[in-house]
């Protein structure tokens, strides 16, 4: 057996972090923002305030301690000072991060406290922001700040509090290796009265049979601990999936199959009518290595009752309201959430997984509002990726042609089209300039249609364009600029759900919205992780046709990470 089984630590090199490091390091970041915002709600509005000025300075100071080669402890505090808030008022102290991680017995890697975690797109996954296409320039700075604030990573992880472990086994025959990952986090504590302790746990086993085939078994569960409250029924959301990846890798091309299928159950533990359904998602991709070209086609079928809240939670909480100019007009109507607000207002962002179907904005994302794990969707999709050898341009394009699995209120199914493209143009490389010049373009189109019926059809289209550029004028000084345009028109029937997420009615949704945005300014990079930027931006919005408004803002950011 000894010869047949070799224990190993996956990525051991990355966790044997402290061999050459100091025992105590300071890590963190600092940021300062000054902004002046003005709103033009129209001449008829004689009630609303029109200008606001604010800002803050904050520092995140972390102590990374390596008591030995196998252990790392991080504690980070935040000191935040609202401008004008000296002498105690407006100053806050918070614990921002806390974790211990390391390797136990040279076998088991663990992390306790804050963990950034994900499994698969159908089990545990932090889906990208609605209509997030290509952010650079001023929008890139805001996105960078929002991600830092919310612990979102480029890797689609959720920041959770709990514990995680992983370890691996290597075999000389039959299979190459098996990796095990496990986690447990706390979603909400009990109130010792009527709210049960809710945990989220799971893990997976990834079997790499050979360089051709990798198979994974994944399971996650959101569950209540019984008897941590009195008289409250316990809830469960269990998701089990099987992933498979098969690769045929040649010198000039690569053919790859990717697939995931699984089942979910969701409901009260003792409720026999708990929702249960399954999904399948499979794709085949072909890559021409020498040409930087890759294309794939796939098929997905997510059951109408498939529920996996670890993968269906949204980054944006659309139930939140604006923290800036939240009401306007003489009637003080509530200003609806715009794309601009999503980039501008950190209050919209979720930092935890929500149990239950999250609110969404059909104008921003009606096709896959809960990511690729969105329930009640089936159809085909394809992707194209291209990057030329000299890296002048990089193109990513995705197209979904989907429909409902089960009709809502009618047997007639909605049809969905969703196309999105990102294009990065490296102008300086293209023109052989020494100064860095980049242009990023993102375009997104969504359409929802349902055939006309005696009660009217459904036709909702959304189109968004984002262009951003960064142009180096002199060394490390960049001219930054953005232009974006968003338009959404049509109608939809939105499901009204009860406390058990069952559809009890439909509400008519009509929109004829346009939103424009531009920004221009400068950014000076002191180093890779330190910059100062000042820009002016304007936003016009007629989401509410009767009450269009415009927002303008001057922002000065100083950002440092260390």
């Amino acid at each position, binding site marked *: 057996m000894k010869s047949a089984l070799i224990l190993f630590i996956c990525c051991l090199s990355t966790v044997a972090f402290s061999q050459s490091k100091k025992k105590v390091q300071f890590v963190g970041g600092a940021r300062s923002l000054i902004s002046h915002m003005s709103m033009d709600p129209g001449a008829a509005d004689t009630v609303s305030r029109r200008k606001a000025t604010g800002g803050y300075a904050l520092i995140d100071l972390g102590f990374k301690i390596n008591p030995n080669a196998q252990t790392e402890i991080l504690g980070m505090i935040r000191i935040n000072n609202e401008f004008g808030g000296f002498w105690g008022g407006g100053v806050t102290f918070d614990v921002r991060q806390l974790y211990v991680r390391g390797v136990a017995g040279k076998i088991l890697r663990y992390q306790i406290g804050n963990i950034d975690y994900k499994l698969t797109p159908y089990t545990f996954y932090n889906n990208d922001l609605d209509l997030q296409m290509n952010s650079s320039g001023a929008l890139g700075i805001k996105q960078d700040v929002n991600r830092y604030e919310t612990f979102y990573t480029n890797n689609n992880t959720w920041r959770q509090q709990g514990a995680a472990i992983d370890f691996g086994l290597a075999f000389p025959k039959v299979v190459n290796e098996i990796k095990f990952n496990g986690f447990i986090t706390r979603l909400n504590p009990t109130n010792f009265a009527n709210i049960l302790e809710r945990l989220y746990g799971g893990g997976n086993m990834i079997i790499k049979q050979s360089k*051709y*085939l990798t198979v994974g078994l994944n399971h996650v569960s959101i569950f209540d601990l019984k008897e941590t409250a009195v008289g409250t029924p316990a809830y469960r959301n269990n998701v089990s999936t099987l992933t*498979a990846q*098969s690769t*045929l890798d040649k010198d000039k091309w690569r*053919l790859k*199959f990717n*697939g995931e*299928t699984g089942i979910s159950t969701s409901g009260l533990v003792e409720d026999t009518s708990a929702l249960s359904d*399954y999904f*399948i998602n*499979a794709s*085949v991709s072909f890559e021409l290595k020498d040409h930087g070209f890759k294309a794939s086609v796939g*098929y997905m*079928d997510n*059951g*109408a009752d498939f529920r996996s809240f670890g993968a269906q939670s949204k980054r944006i909480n659309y139930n939140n309201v604006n923290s800036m100019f939240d009401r306007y007009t003489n009637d003080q109507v509530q200003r609806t959430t715009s794309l601009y607000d999503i980039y501008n207002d950190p209050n919209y962002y979720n930092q935890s997984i929500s149990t239950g179907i999250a609110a969404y904005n059909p104008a921003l994302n009606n096709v896959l509002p809960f990511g690729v794990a969105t329930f*009640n969707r089936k159809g085909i999709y394809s992707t194209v990726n291209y990057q030329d050898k000299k890296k002048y341009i990089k193109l990513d394009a995705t197209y979904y042609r989907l429909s409902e*699995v*089960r*009709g*809502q*209120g*009618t*047997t007639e199914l909605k049809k969905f089209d969703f196309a999105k493209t990102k294009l990065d143009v490296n102008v300086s490389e293209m023109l052989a300039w020494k100064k860095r010049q980049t242009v990023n373009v993102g375009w997104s189109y969504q359409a929802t249609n349902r055939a006309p*019926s*005696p*009660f009217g059809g459904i036709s909702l289209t959304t189109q968004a364009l984002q262009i951003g550029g960064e142009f180096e004028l002199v060394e490390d000084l960049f001219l930054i600029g953005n232009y974006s345009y968003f338009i959404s028109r049509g109608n939809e*029937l939105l*499901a009204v759900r009860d406390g058990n997420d*069952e*559809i*009890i*009615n*439909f509400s008519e949704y009509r929109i004829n919205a346009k939103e424009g945005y531009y920004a221009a300014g400068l950014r000076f990079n002191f180093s890779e992780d330190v910059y100062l930027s000042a820009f002016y931006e304007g936003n016009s919005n007629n989401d509410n046709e009767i009450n269009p408004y415009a927002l303008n803002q001057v922002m000065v950011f100083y950002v440092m990470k260390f």
Partner: protein
Amino acid sequence: MKKYLLLLVVGSVLLTACRKDEVDQIDGPSLTDIYGEFNIFTPFAVSAPAVDFGTGETVHFTAEFSKSVDWEIRITGQTSGAVKVISGFGATIDENTSNWIGDITEFPIFQTEICDVELSFLNEPDVFAETVEITSPKTNDGFLVADFESGFNSGWSTFVQSGANMDFQIKSDNFSPEQGSYFNMAGEVDWDYLIGYVYFDASAYGAAHYPLSNNADNEYFNFMLYGEPGLTNTIMLFQFTEDDNDDGNHNGSNEDMYSLELIVDWEGWRLVSIKYSDIPCLVNGQPAAPNGNGVHNPDKLTSINMLHLANPVTGFAQSKLDYMIFTQNGPLRP
């Protein structure tokens, strides 16, 4: 490698093909039900023009609509004024959704009479009318303690204080919720909570114990109680004395007595039903441990003591009582 790819592709296709056909299923309420035009496909009808509830017959109603709606059938006795309401949501009214056994929703109880039947809708203006004749009213299984239709049982014992405006007697008038008579209790006693009482001894029915089963979870005590408009000071106390040692008598010092206390703060007739095992033991109105075996024994019930009480400072108190009956397997459906 090829076989892996083939296996995965074939497996994916098979899994996809396995999805059950959901073409005919919908999520949520039908749009037709929400936005469709309302029409009557099958007219409103009664399954029989006359019904004999006394022999166990039932009657139901039928209708069919173009869409699901909230509907309500209101049956009103032309003589008694009794009301039965049956409601539901759907596109069809049939025996499953509208079967009527002769029971009521609002007092009084139906008599032998002709009833008006009206079908109406929550969000539609249409109203349809029919009639149905009750040839004999519904009878209720169970042990009848008192309905006061045959006068005062000589086996019952009673005491009435000598207060003001005392009126403890059986009355026969339109107030009666069941048949023609009820027991009226009224008076003002400014020195004591007790206004009057009636003890319904088992001996009045020819036995030492009430003829009930020994399953306290299966025996239900029911009665109809009237709250006088404008008066909320009546306290009704029902005491259930048991003969735990089977000596034929209840001894309060070492045998169980359970008590049901009600503050009559409502107006009009109300049906009160309670499972025998849910009746608590009270001492001075507070829960206490029983003095006997501590087990609810309906088969050892020797007497039901009904006391009409009121705080002496609150003045005149009045209520009415009718149709005291034990039922099995569930509360009374009059």
